[in-house]
């Protein structure tokens, strides 16, 4: 299972990658913004996307719109990463078709639950 991690913060990518490893997700691709994310999506199949909303270049919501309007990508489960502040953006993201979310700063269990929920929604 391949996970794509899109976050402009290097330390947040490290933290998420480390947590994903604990949950046996070892195939993780990283992107520092939405444009880089698109580049990775174009290279091959992705099974799960963790997407930060607050990013330079192409932000999370814009990327989510692109994902959901693309026939190849629209079924990839997306977990939004956000801080508490962005409740409006979060609502918008869920409306656009995100499958679950985690809020920063997050605890380990939060990510595990968000992944489980996103995968259930995909298979359910």
């Amino acid at each position, binding site marked *: 299972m391949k996970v794509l991690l899109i976050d402009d913060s290097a330390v947040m990518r*490290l933290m998420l990658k480390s947590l994903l490893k604990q949950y046996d997700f070892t195939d993780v691709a990283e992107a520092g913004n939405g444009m880089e994310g698109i580049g990775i999506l174009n290279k091959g199949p992705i099974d799960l996307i963790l997407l930060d909303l607050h990013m330079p270049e192409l932000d999370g919501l814009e990327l989510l719109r692109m994902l959901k309007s693309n026939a190849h990508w629209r079924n990839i489960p997306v977990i939004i990463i956000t801080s508490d502040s962005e409740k409006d953006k979060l609502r918008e993201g869920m409306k656009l078709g995100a499958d679950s979310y985690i809020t920063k*700063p997050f605890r380990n269990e939060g990510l595990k639950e968000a992944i489980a929920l996103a995968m259930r929604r995909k298979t359910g």
Partner: protein
Amino acid sequence: MNSKRSNIYLVASKESKWALDFQAFINGRYDIIMLKPEDLENMRISPDSAVRGVIVLYESDCPPAQWFKRVRSCVLYMDLPLIAVTTTLTLAMRAQLLAAGASVVCDAGDGPERVLIETENRCNVEPVMENIRQQLLNPFIDATMRTLTTLTGGAPLLHSVYCKNGYSIFGDYSVLVTLCTRSEGTMVISFPRQTGYEIGKRMILPLGVEINEELVQSCLMEIANIIVGQAKGALAPTIYRFSMSLPNIIAGRNHVIRYQSGLPCLVASFTGEIGEFALQLCMDISGQEPKGDVS
């Protein structure tokens, strides 16, 4: 209301006649906190609205200006008035002391009244009004506590809260986030290098990755981003709602950032096991509705 008495630090040898005369002149108007020169080695004068200034007395056997730099580094994050008083004033000494960070150099012969006036005139620190603290600053303070406790495991302790009218910010790392309300404001979190690295270690080392300068800066930017994000959420239903930029970092030992926003600067300084740092918030506190959509 802040009921603490105001105080002035006086660095001098206890036997100094000038220091005794100064205390007699003050006659209880301020609390005088006496420090010996050797006390400066391991101390920090933390910012506090009660501190009005630091007076450093040089007498004939005084150490050189390098020693005054030590006084400057004892005062965290703020431009407290640092008044040098000397019994052997020369033009060269004045230049040296000003270059080392003195706000003004006084001749001991001018008497204590002149020194007190210089101190009071240069003090720009005031208590924060209670309603501003509750409605505006506390969401940032709460977000700071929560974020750092979760990410580093070390709960910061709030040391003091005050308002300053100067716009100088000191630190080794400063993360800036622009806030848009009625006018453009800024939140800056400044960290000494030691605190920055302690935070970095606590966030990075458990991931099995070696710490480096780039990752430390990434940690501090992410922390600032989360803090502002959380405060933004808490303030969204209020007149202090704002939109925010991505964080930027300025790194450089003992850098000073000066900006002229015309807005008051609210400061919350923290201490604790991760070290000292300060959050500085400059934004419109007039209590008027923001113009347009700031979501």
